[in-house]
């Protein structure tokens, strides 16, 4: 199906299943421990051996020797693979460094060996017997040091990523009110609960990976490229994924090493990355330095905006671009955005939930708070006053498809009791606690990508949907079932959804907040094809028929769905060029209240609210969960999360879940989420946009602004831990 023009009225406008809060259809399996994750597929292949990965002890340099004599002789050991004996594998999609093989070390804890043994205990024990010698090389590990000489990154059209509009310099120079501040965000870890894990088995030329991966089709193609084999001989299966957040978008060492080890051992091998290896072995969100300059008139209208961003990565590729929201959020005639990328020898940086926009909002939405204070203007009012017209301020050739940011902010202010906020910090107090309120706006693009599915009708009238789409906690199983039930006119429990298998039609996968919009549109396309096949078989025009309650009504005629017998249709949704004229985005108003201990600076979040504008909400229950989950991750980014760089040795020191603190239950209060009742006809036939990343764009800054409102101390370097401000709190008796 081609989506070549804005969606008109369609069956989703009168939907009875889509759009209703629907408990997850995979809930009974997940809550009883019956949903099988990658490492747990005991039944898929016999005689599985256990693999254990060894990580490099240095960050940069070369292996001079490896000795596995003792490891090979250790009890239970079946096979050992060593990087020094293995030619470096190819790079898969968006891999910045080879995932195994060769003597070159490009980051700490890079996989350099794997021991395969009869038991996990034997593999782990023997892995510690491998001796490795290195020549340590010198590397660049300090972003602040190398940033000043970093070149511009390349944009998606491979041009240097510096964009101007009007004349920023003169407009800023002549602006009556100016803000010029620099902000820092740290390296962050996805820290999903399920470690990267794979069971690999070869059957002749054919490789099967039971793995944990967000993007099955990318994974299949990448794996073929990495190993130099035909993609037809690779199968991935990931029906359940214990979290990803971008960390499982690409093939990582677990899959590659399991495949190589299985070949060597001549039997199936299962392995999981041990938690202490994950931060340095896999990917992370790169740190940023962001300089923001905003000039405004005394009336609060912005005349000049500049946002410059520096980040770093291995090989100087694809950093974290904090400027992404800046062309879109606020009006202003004179603009500059620039994105610089330094070469660093830290582990590989890559996508993490709302790459670019998440840290971009962390900086930019503090800057707006600072500007509001300079203007003596309410922060909500400042944003409302700079609401753009119908075109994107930084890219006037693009129209907004649908934008209700002002409604989000107004509605949020009212619900949150924003009028309680005092403009002067430190004015609200509750015993030992200073109370502060903060807010931020949020924008996240809402892309949609080609997505396919196969839909089958069986003789019992059940609808079986098969697609390689994944559910990483996003609720894909349920929204796909809702979509099929709605389109085919059957109850939800008549739909069976099978996901995550590369033998199914390729979907858009889970990433970039595009999964929900794209995959449901693909399922819709396949369902429309199936309806037409049913119509052809039974002799009616399906497009004019009503499918309801397992029946088909066509004027005077009606059929049972089962009369069609078993049928199958496969189709995909393709998104047409017309969308290029639009900026399709999601918007939010984020609000937070914090209490800061006046003595120690300990901060507790008291309340959080997000009002979201994301078109049709397919399943308000799971969409709300996506948003609150992103708000939790934003709270972590605001208050505690930081991969600490040891700049001498070039690695993340706090590489486990005790060292890298993420929020726990006690940190997170009741969270409110409101979805505006909007529709976006440009995004897809469903008029629905994703929300999984919108929720992390803004709340961290809202918390930062609330801490400032409580304390009067402005911290511009995340995470905002108490040591950065408590000494500036008023003296205590």
């Amino acid at each position, binding site marked *: 199906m081609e989506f070549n023009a804005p969606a008109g009225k369609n069956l989703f406008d009168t939907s009875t299943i889509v759009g209703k809060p629907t408990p997850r259809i995979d809930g009974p399996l997940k809550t009883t421990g019956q949903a099988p994750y990658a490492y747990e597929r005991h039944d898929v292949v016999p005689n599985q051996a256990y693999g254990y990965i060894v990580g490099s*002890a*240095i960050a940069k340099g070369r292996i001079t020797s490896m000795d596995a004599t003792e490891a090979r002789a250790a*009890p239970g050991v079946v096979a050992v693979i060593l990087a020094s004996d293995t030619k470096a594998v190819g790079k898969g999609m968006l891999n910045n460094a080879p995932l195994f093989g060769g003597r070159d070390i490009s980051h700490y804890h890079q996989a350099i060996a794997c021991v395969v043994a009869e038991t996990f*205990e034997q593999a*782990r*024990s023997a892995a*510690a017997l491998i001796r490795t010698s290195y020549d340590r090389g010198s590397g660049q590990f300090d972003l602040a040091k190398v940033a000043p000489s970093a070149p511009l990154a390349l944009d998606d059209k491979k041009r240097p990523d510096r964009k101007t509009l009007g004349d920023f310099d003169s407009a800023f120079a002549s602006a009556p009110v100016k803000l010029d501040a620099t902000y820092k965000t740290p390296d962050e870890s996805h820290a999903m609960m399920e470690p990267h894990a794979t069971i690999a088995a070869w059957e002749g030329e054919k490789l099967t990976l039971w793995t944990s991966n967000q993007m099955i089709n990318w994974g299949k193609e990448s794996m073929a490229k990495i190993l130099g084999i035909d993609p037809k001989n690779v199968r991935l299966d990931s029906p359940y994924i214990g979290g990803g957040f971008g960390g499982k978008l690409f093939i990582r060492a677990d899959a590659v090493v399991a495949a190589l080890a299985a070949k060597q051992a001549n039997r199936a091998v299962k392995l999981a990355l041990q938690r*202490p290896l994950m931060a340095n072995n896999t990917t992370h969100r790169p740190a940023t330095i962001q300089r923001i300059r905003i000039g405004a008139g005394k009336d609060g209208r912005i005349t000049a905006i500049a946002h410059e961003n520096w980040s770093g990565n291995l090989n100087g590729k694809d950093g974290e671009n904090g400027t992404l929201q800046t062309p879109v959020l606020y009006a202003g005639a004179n603009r500059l955005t620039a994105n610089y990328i330094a070469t660093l020898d830290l582990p590989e940086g890559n996508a993490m939930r709302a790459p670019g926009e998440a840290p971009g909002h962390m900086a930019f939405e503090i800057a707006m708070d600072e500007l509001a204070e300079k203007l003596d203007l309410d922060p909500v009012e400042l944003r409302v006053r700079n609401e753009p017209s119908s075109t994107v301020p930084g890219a006037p050739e693009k129209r907004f498809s649908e934008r209700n940011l002002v409604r989000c902010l107004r509605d949020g202010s009212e619900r949150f009791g924003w009028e309680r906020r005092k403009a002067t910090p430190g004015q609200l107090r509750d*015993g*030992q606690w200073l109370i502060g309120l903060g807010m931020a706006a949020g924008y996240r693009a809402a892309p949609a990508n080609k997505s396919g599915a196969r839909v089958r009708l069986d003789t019992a009238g059940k609808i079986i949907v098969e697609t390689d789409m994944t559910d990483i906690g996003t609720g894909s199983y349920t929204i796909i079932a809702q979509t099929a039930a709605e389109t085919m006119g059957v109850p939800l429990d008549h739909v069976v959804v099978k996901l995550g298998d590369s033998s199914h039609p390729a979907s858009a996968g889970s990433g970039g907040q595009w999964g929900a919009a794209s995959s449901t549109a693909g399922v819709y396309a396949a369902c429309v094809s199936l309806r037409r096949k049913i119509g052809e078989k039974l002799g009616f025009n399906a497009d004019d028929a009503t499918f309801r309650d397992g029946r088909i009504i066509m004027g005077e005629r009606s059929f049972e769905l089962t009369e069609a017998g078993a049928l199958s249709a496969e189709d995909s949704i393709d998104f047409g060029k017309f969308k290029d004229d639009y900026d399709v985005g999601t918007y939010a108003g984020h609000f937070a209240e914090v209490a800061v*201990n006046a*003595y*120690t*600076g*300990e901060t*507790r979040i008291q309340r959080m609210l997000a009002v979201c504008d994301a078109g049709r909400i397919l399943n308000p229950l799971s969409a709300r969960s996506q948003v609150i989950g992103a708000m939790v991750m934003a709270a972590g980014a605001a*208050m*505690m999360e930081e991969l*600490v760089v*040891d700049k*001498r*040795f070039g690695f993340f*020191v*706090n*590489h*486990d879940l*005790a*060292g890298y*603190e993420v*929020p*726990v*239950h*006690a*940190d997170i209060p009741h969270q409110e989420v409101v979805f505006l009742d909007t529709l976006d006809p440009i995004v897809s036939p469903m008029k629905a946009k994703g929300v999984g990343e919108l929720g992390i764009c803004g709340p961290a800054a809202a918390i930062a602004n609330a801490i400032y409102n409580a304390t009067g101390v402005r911290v511009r370097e995340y*995470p905002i*831990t*108490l*040591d950065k401000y*408590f*000494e500036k709190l008023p003296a*205590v*008796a």
Partner: protein
Amino acid sequence: MRAFTYERAKTPEEAAAAVANMPGAKFLAGGTNLLDLMKLEVETPTHLVDIQDIGLDRIEESGDGGVRIGAFVSNTALASDKRIRRDYGVLSRAIVAGASGQLRNKATTAGNLIQRTRCSYFYDTNMACNKRQPGSGCAALEGFSRQLAVIGTSDACIATYPGDMAIAMRVLDATVQTVKADGNVRSIPIADFHRLPGDTPHIDNVLERGELITHVTLPRPVGGRHFYHKVRDRASYAFALVSVAGIIQGDKSIKVAFGGVAPKPWRVESAEAAIADDRAAAMAKIFTGARPTPENAFKITLADRALAAVMAEARS
């Protein structure tokens, strides 16, 4: 984790003998710290002597009006005990400020006392660490030290004692009771139990090889109001940046010990008399000789403000 043999001892003396007589043997209580470190091969025992069956799981009156706590009493059981909550509230509060419900159900009184440091470099076997591998150096000295000690450190080690329970025991003047393989027992004041690192940071405490903690005794209750204020980056399930265990009497006299700042629970009794009237002077005395790093110097001010918070709460 290296292979090991396992046995369950039946009496404290038998346990002590089993460890004393076999090189590479260690006691196993709850295992929440030891197994964590064994998985990383930071700890590499070849034999484990499980003490769960040796009858040290009771909290009893000690005869002199105090309390005797068995080595194997779980953190939860200790924190939940009615008498502990009533008469030694600081101890109950300290315990429930530590770890998680699951860990407190498994962790024991003796095990918690000998919990090892959480320094990231101690945990990473690729890094130099004198505590893990004597003579290898200390990667933390000029590395990531925000969590680490500001006082009591040496050029060889700046690790922090990470526990909470022992901080309260220090302010309660607890005594650690032990038994050796030959049946000899000794009583070690909690003040003397943990060692400062000096040149031998691999030795955390004064226990001898095969010496088993059997009990911790608490003296007769001292009354007063009990506080444990733990400051950390997240609201729960995290190690202290700084913690304060305090007992404040009606006459404003105060006993205070600090956690998160030193290789052992940090208490300077001689400074306590001055706290009520001149906290700054008292704190200066308590932290005399501190050698913080640029990353953790804030802990000294934080300790002061955390103490001020406790004193303010006592006034309210």
